[in-house]
């Protein structure tokens, strides 16, 4: 009943079909299944469908965590399977149990990575340089050695974090934060970390918020992260910031992250911090954050900050932001600040902002504006305020 006889399909036609080189029909193969096969292969390789792209944001999140510094700095050592990466293959339970005995015992008991595996944080790396995560048999890397010495057991039963401290670059922290979240997530769900996959925003959030994080972070492998942000509680907040979660684990503690650490986060990362993450931070805490960090937040995040925090920002930042601020925030701003900012703006922008001010404040502000600017304002507004030029 069908004219298609599979035995007639030639090798050449097959290659053409696989190359997608078959146009409207297959020459000489009208009855060899060529066209039906072409339809089948075309359907198999049809353009992307939206349902196939739902993981895009999660993949980009993973990408960002890996590429927080320019590639020239981050390429070093990336292809080497790191001890950190190997944690992913480790049972979390085993990991928690052996933490007290230090890195070497951890390695020996799990067999998941070799005792010779060490994490080196290069001294030259500091806050902006590269971090080399590598395997080394000798430990004679030029950099600072941050893995636990073999056989070391701390008296407190916890890893001696002072021995593990070392500055991590942004790319190093990005990687470690992701591994931290993966490990915590795996612990919450009682699965092997290798089964976690790429966590989406919700997954990251639940991992960083979980009480398990406090245990997981005791692993010596996270010592460098803890050292960088000074304490364990800070790690959750800091990782939340750089992984763009919507709600920080401990927003009230944000200001306890060392200022230089916050300031060292690249602008490209700070600008991705979601508004919701910052809106959960108490005003008092916001007021203590380094200005260099705050000014690099996205303008829509800035627009949600209280006037008391905005008043600290450089006028260059505020001038660009003023039109976006809600009326309630504008109304809370000091008159002199508002007047000073408006005086630097074109009359057309000033009119829109003035329209959002309550009448009492409006009158005060307008009277403080230079005459040259007043000339550009609508006469109706001026006459309403009893100003004649």
């Amino acid at each position, binding site marked *: 009943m069908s004219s298609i006889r599979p035995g007639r399909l030639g090798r050449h036609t097959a290659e053409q079909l696989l190359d997608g080189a078959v146009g409207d029909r297959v020459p000489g193969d009208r009855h060899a299944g060529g066209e039906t096969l072409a*339809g089948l292969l075309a*359907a198999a*390789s049809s353009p992307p469908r939206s349902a196939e792209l739902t993981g895009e944001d999660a993949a980009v999140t993973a990408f960002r965590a890996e*590429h927080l510094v320019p590639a020239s700095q981050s390429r070093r050592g990336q292809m080497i399977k790191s001890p950190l990466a190997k944690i992913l293959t480790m049972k979390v339970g085993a990991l928690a149990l052996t933490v007290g005995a230090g890195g070497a015992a951890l390695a020996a008991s799990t067999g998941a990575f070799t005792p010779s595996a060490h994490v080196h944080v290069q001294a030259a790396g500091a806050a902006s340089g590269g971090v080399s995560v590598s395997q080394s048999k000798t430990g004679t890397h030029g950099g600072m050695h941050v893995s636990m010495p073999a056989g070391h057991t701390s008296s407190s039963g916890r890893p001696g974090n002072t021995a593990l401290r070392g500055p991590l670059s942004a790319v190093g922290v990005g990687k470690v934060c992701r591994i931290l979240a993966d490990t915590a997530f795996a612990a919450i769900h009682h699965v092997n970390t290798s089964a976690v*996959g790429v966590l989406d925003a919700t997954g990251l959030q639940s991992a960083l918020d979980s009480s398990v994080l406090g245990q997981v972070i005791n692993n010596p492998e996270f010592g460098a992260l803890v050292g960088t942000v000074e304490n364990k509680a800070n790690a959750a907040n800091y990782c939340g910031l750089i992984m763009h979660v919507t709600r920080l684990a401990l927003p009230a503690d944000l200001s306890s992250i060392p200022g230089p650490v916050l300031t060292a986060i690249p602008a490209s990362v700070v600008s991705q911090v979601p508004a919701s993450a910052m809106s959960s931070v108490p005003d008092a805490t916001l007021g203590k954050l380094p200005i260099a960090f705050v000014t690099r937040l996205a303008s829509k995040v800035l627009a949600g900050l209280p006037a008391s925090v905005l008043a600290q920002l450089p006028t260059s930042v505020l001038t660009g932001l003023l039109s976006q601020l809600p009326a309630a925030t504008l109304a809370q701003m000091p008159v002199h600040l508002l007047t000073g900012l408006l005086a630097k703006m074109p009359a057309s922008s000033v009119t829109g902002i003035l329209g959002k001010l309550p009448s009492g404040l409006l009158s005060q502000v307008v009277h403080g504006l230079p005459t040259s600017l007043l000339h550009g304002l609508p006469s109706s507004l001026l006459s309403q305020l009893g100003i004649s030029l």
Partner: protein
Amino acid sequence: MGQMDRADLTVVSVVEPAQDPPGDRASIAGPPRAPVADLADAVRKAQDGDDEAFRLLYRDLQPRLLRYLRALVGDDADDVASETWLHIARGLSGFQGDSDGFRGWTATIARNRATDHVRHHQRRVATVAVPVEELTGLAGSDDTADSAIEGISTDAAIALIARLPRDQAEAVLLRAVMGLDAESAGKVLGKRAGAVRTAAYRGLRKLAGFLGE
């Protein structure tokens, strides 16, 4: 590992393709195939940390990887694809090569993830036990209109290819869906190009048989 369950492979009374009226062949070449774009520029930019370039790579490759993985791990393809992207993100900086090389590299990662996945879960991959006539009759509701005209959806096409013996299915998918040439596909599979050509050829013959025996 990952051998497909062949038990339900009985292909019965294949319907004659509805889109096969004689004399009207020029207009039925099938839906447009996703062009194999040159990704070299996007790869370089992504290596320098460019989010948007990474998105471009994702949008081009994810559907291909997902379809390839569908044949390797069935319904777990989404999970394995997610894991594949985690590894791509991690290894991207160290990748060296051209656009074809990049496609092959991602396919290799996907294949390794699938192998690990199957080993870890110690289970055989369930293939869809839908009769071929249903597959060929399925005009995918989520597909493009062009695809619907052809009468076979992308999912149905992949499901049909997944019924081939593993080596043939992989050869066909790497060639036609991942857009690799025989040499690149051979690198992914650890085979010589000639072996890939033969496997793909046999796969196509078998597919033609499914469609119109």
